[in-house]
């Protein structure tokens, strides 16, 4: 797959790499078990320091999204490896921002949920069963007893990344 990075961007480069790989996995462009470019090759393709690529891969591996097999390469992991608690934390941060923004623009929760469904269709994601939205009582309880929620667009935004203070 092809990646693109922008050095002047708000996100550090290793995060840009992580986000694009995550998006590709979430969008199905990278399937479970598929092989990723080697760290060296990716560093050369993107013209970035090999340590930057290593950092991105290490983080993705910690998230359970990819796994490296010594001597064979790096592969997209199985969904089961994703730490659901961590993913939920990331999703919660994204949800908080999404809802604040919706509130500011006068968009209702129902409209936001409808929007999420539209985006899901656009991305070609399979409906996630009893996951987001279909429980009908908002994002707070989403994924609580279902399988781990699918990856969000921006799962790596830690709460401290937000420009607004937490409370």
């Amino acid at each position, binding site marked *: 797959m092809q990646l693109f*990075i922008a*050095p*002047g*961007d*708000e*996100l*550090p*480069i*290793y*995060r840009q790499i992580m986000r694009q790989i995550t998006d590709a996995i979430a969008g199905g462009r990278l399937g479970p078990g598929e092989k990723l470019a080697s760290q*060296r090759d990716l*560093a*050369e393709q*993107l*013209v*970035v*320091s*090999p*340590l*930057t690529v290593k*950092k991105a891969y290490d983080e993705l591996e910690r998230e359970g999204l990819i796994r490296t097999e010594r001597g064979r390469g790096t592969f997209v992991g199985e969904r089961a490896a994703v730490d659901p608690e961590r993913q939920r934390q990331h999703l919660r941060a994204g949800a908080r921002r999404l809802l604040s923004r919706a509130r500011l623009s006068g968009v209702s929760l129902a409209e936001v949920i409808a929007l999420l469904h539209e985006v899901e269709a656009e991305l070609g994601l399979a409906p996630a069963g009893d996951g987001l939205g279909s429980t009908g009582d908002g994002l707070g309880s989403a994924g609580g007893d279902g399988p781990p929620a699918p990856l969000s667009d921006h799962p790596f935004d830690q*709460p*401290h*990344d*937000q*420009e607004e*203070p*937490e409370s």
Partner: protein
Amino acid sequence: MNVVELNNVDQMYAGGVLALSDVNVSIEAGQVVGLVGENGAGKTTLMRIAMGMLGPRRGTVRLFGLDPRRDAVGVKRRIGYVSEDQILPPFLRVDRVIDLHRSLFPTWDDALARRLAERFKISPKAKIRTLSKGQARQVALLCAVAHRPELLLLDEPAGGLDPAARREFLETSIRLLNEAGTAILFSSHYLTDVERMADRLVMLHDGRVLIDSDLDTLRESYSLALLPANGTVSRDRLLALGGCLGVRERSEGLRALFALAPGETSELLAETVGIGDAPCHRIGLEEMFIELVGGQA
């Protein structure tokens, strides 16, 4: 063992002006360190001291654990150097210039030199003076790396090159790093190049190290707070806060740079100076540079 180790290094210009003041920098194998600072901040002096072209007025310099003044040849054989104002002999042919370098370095790798020459599409028979600026810089890079140095010193290597030639130059450097684990110290005014290539950033200002940090940490845990101009808080008060690196006073307000993530800066400002609603932003390297250099006392 670190590839480069500068400890408490001072250097003076003629006339007693400090060019470097108590500089401490160390570089590990395989690291890419970007060296930035205004013109005259001491970047070139630092490179020359690392090369052993200058001795420090005070402090110690070690490359691969050796003194580059005492083991001048031994050290130079393990490093490569390209600078913006490097001049190759204009009337020599490319292959003669390459021969010249080959004869100086026992570890010269002919296959690598050939591969690079092919990649750069430079005719070995061409005279240096007929080459474009970008091509001449590529020849210089080839000569600096074909002996597979453990450390590559690039002093403003992309200066004067167009974007395509600059990118090509960076690509070759990355390739080398991949192949040989070469550590790179490069100075540049192109901060996007630094963001792209470097793992670590060293910022010099008036001969001092203002910042020495992992680049990602810098991007994620530095922020700029925009504060009102109405006199609720003074520049000095802000500078006295822990984590405040610089404050610029502008007609529309104060801009304070903090070594804290945006949320932490907000909290700090709320707790210490009672301003709870100051917007705090993450910023890119270029803005950070301007805020820092412009915000010094």
